[in-house]
């Protein structure tokens, strides 16, 4: 029992801390890539604290509450993955479904704002969810085919490296990660820079404490998704950590080297990748199973 409580406390401290650090690293590394010095690593935390202290502007009384729901579900979502040992059968499919549920609240917040930028941002975010969702579910499915279980704990303690049976799905997952992180070339719904055609898109109407909630929830999401990356290599934790960090670095690199895709291109590229990498990987696993009996 005490052990469980320690787990919970550790999760609540380290998940946002890690998420914030990743965001800070992102800014530093991006700056270096662009030949700038960039802010200190802890800048995201300073930003969030500053935002929390500001006045809470809102376009309607429901708007910021959606963000509260978004944050709570993002927290639950990470808990499902990292505290899986507390629930004696935690399902990886549920983790993905909760991610969707959390994002729906974010999208509803943007819809409710009544601003055209926000509305189009919401619509695009929804489209990005549609684009990314199949590969996330295929990942869960691939885990099942490799370990015979949807249970997070069993997937974590698999006796072989899952990456070896799921290389296609892994590459596909990294691909989708850029969509989920809302990074270029898939920063259609909102981007880090306000000088695009949609201003700040989805987040246009978030300001002050509401924007802080959005940032914190996004940290939880990043940590959760990187956790899934780690699961591919869970049998050798050190390698897993290194690959996870490298994956994050790869998304930053892609972010800095690609221009934004159009909506249609995003859809076509992502679904073709899903079918070839994800579907192909599942087919190969299935045939191997048939051959081996």
């Amino acid at each position: 029992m005490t052990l469980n409580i320690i787990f919970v406390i550790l999760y609540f401290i380290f998940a946002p801390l890690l998420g914030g650090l990743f965001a800070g690293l992102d800014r530093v590394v991006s700056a270096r890539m662009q030949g700038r010095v960039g802010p200190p690593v802890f800048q995201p935390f300073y930003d969030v604290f500053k935002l929390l202290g500001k006045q809470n502007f809102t376009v309607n009384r429901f708007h910021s509450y959606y963000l509260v729901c978004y944050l709570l579900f993002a927290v639950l979502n990470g808990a499902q993955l990292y505290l899986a040992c507390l629930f004696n059968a935690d399902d990886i499919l549920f983790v993905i479904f909760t991610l969707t549920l959390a994002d729906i609240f974010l999208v509803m917040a943007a819809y409710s704002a009544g601003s055209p930028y926000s509305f189009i941002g919401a619509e695009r975010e929804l489209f990005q969810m549609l684009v990314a969702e199949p590969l996330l579910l295929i990942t869960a499915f691939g885990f099942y085919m490799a370990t015979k279980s949807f249970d997070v704990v069993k997937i974590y303690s698999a006796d072989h490296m899952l990456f070896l049976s799921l290389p296609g799905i892994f590459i596909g997952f990294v691909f989708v990660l850029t969509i989920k992180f809302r990074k270029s070339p898939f920063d259609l719904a909102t981007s880090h820079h306000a000088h695009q055609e949609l201003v700040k898109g989805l987040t246009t109407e978030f300001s002050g404490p509401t924007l802080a909630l959005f940032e914190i929830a996004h940290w939880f999401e990043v940590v959760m998704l990187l956790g899934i990356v780690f699961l591919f290599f869970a049998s050798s934790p050190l390698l897993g950590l290194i690959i996870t960090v490298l994956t994050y670095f790869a998304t930053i690199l892609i972010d800095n080297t690609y221009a934004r895709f159009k909506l249609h291109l995003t859809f076509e590229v992502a679904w073709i990748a899903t079918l070839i990498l994800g579907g192909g990987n599942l087919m190969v696993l299935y045939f191997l199973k048939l051959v081996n009996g």
Partner: protein
Amino acid sequence: MLDGNSFLVVFLILFPLLPALLLLMLRAEKAVKIVVNISIAVMSMAAITVAVIFVGGITDFISLSHHLDMLITLGDIIIALVFMYLARNHRSMRYWIPLLVIPQYSAVIFFELTGKIPESSSTFFIDNLSIIMVLIIAIVGGLISIYTPGYMKKYHEEHPEIKDRRHIFISAVFLFFFAMFGIVLSNQLTWIYFFWEITTLCSFIMIGYSQKEEAVRNSFRALWMLLLGGAGFAAAIIYASLYCDTVEVTKLTAAGKTAALIPAVLICFAGFNKAAQFPFSSWLLGAMVAPTPSSALLHSSTMVKAGVYICIRFSPAIHNTACGTFLAFIGAISFFAASAMAISQSDGKRVLAYSTIANLGLIVLCAGVGSYLALWSAILLIIFHALAKALMFCSVGIVEQQCGSRNIEDMHGLISRMPFVSIMMIVGISGMFLAPFGMLISKWSVLEALANNNPILPIAVILGSSLTLFFWSKWMGTLVAVNEDKTDIEKGIGKSIWFPLFSLSALTIIVCAFFPLIGAVLIEPMYGPDFTVMGRGHIIMVTIMMSMVMFLPVGFLINWRNLIHVTPYLGGTNVSDPNRFKGSLKEEEWTLRNYYFENYFGEKKLLKISNIAAILITLAFLTIGWFL
């Protein structure tokens, strides 16, 4: 003779005929309402009592006199004549309908009259699946029929050009209940066939209600398509009496694969035809011309549910055969293609129709896969879909009456104009796709059920469910958008409309909250004592999510004090009206429209391909059984 419990079952089946006859004669609005309400009260009480008495893991049988089979024969003759009479004046159908009716009915009636149909030991049977269906028909169907008189009154006020034939409509509703109870409780194929064709007749009456050109055309399209499915049923009866030596459902499904494969295939054909799977989807889409209560009925508790019920019933007979795989593929195509096409639709009712086809596709897919877990998900899907779809149709119907449009674009900001109805629609939409509500639980279990199969099916389910996510959230987003138009247009909605709406939303939530219980009491006993789906961990997880989803929305009611209200950013100078702004040149107005992605998901693109694919698979499904 009959004991009390069996009598109750017979009463439940026959009772709806009484209000059906009464309502055919009554015209006074008040009297109609009273008769409807009392009948529904009696019917649902009877259904609940039947459920309480017969619930358990075993199948109970009820035998009536064999002489009653004569009545069914007589009924078949009458229905055949009615079908041909209905088509007498229609230019093309006057030949086509008899061409469909005469062969199937003459064969069945010939067999019945010459005593070639094997005698059955029981007339009705009742197990947990029948109980679930009975409850859905009586309660969901009942709520829709309470909704009907109020809706129809307004419908005729708005459409004075349409001849007032309300009494026929409401009477057909009750005839529908009679037929549906008959389908889910009868044990002989000949009886089911009789009831089966009554539902066809009822939907024909409802679709053609307005007698406008389009309505008549669609009603005849539905009629011939459904008769084609009925032909499958007739063929199954003939084959079963010639080669299987029984026409009892329970014996056929227990007979093992080789014995009952052909009749099971034919019946499943009739089943997915009635469930509007591709290539037969167009009858259900055409049915949208009918007044909304009939859509609610056809989509949620009756008609299409009879189709998927029969597929689930006969699933054990085709389990683990190539036929089962083909049936699953028909379901998969319908699920994927219908979900995709729903994205390109802006008419609320059409979106609902495509989503019905999609969800039924998922159920048919489960029936084709046929493992216990798949059937468990299929039955849960039936329950959740019935509730959420009935709620959605009733809400859209009332929105259409209050704002004069059922286009989703016109529902922009509906939450400020019709708060209660919008919240109910949000409950319905969440019930259709969001975790931890019902539909998603079923999708979760479908994926788990498919986990050991060929990956093509799971990929189709995954892609399809991502597509559903898009069109539902887009609709929900349109509803919750807040705009300046805050005129309350909920006034004038009568009690007979509010009651079913509230009850359906409450039931949607309650059933979602207690579904592990429903699974444990109603579904799992059918598949043996060791069969449990939800582990303790799953239940904990679902409970946590459920309570968050239930209690978090309370925060929306609180008027947070610390907020400073501003107008949205518009990239120019805001003027007093938030739908206008001052750009660099002049004052401009903006409006918002959703994405439809016609170039990917348009009907033009997808309908033909999916129909051709589905026709090929259907042909394979029908023929391959003969070679096994």
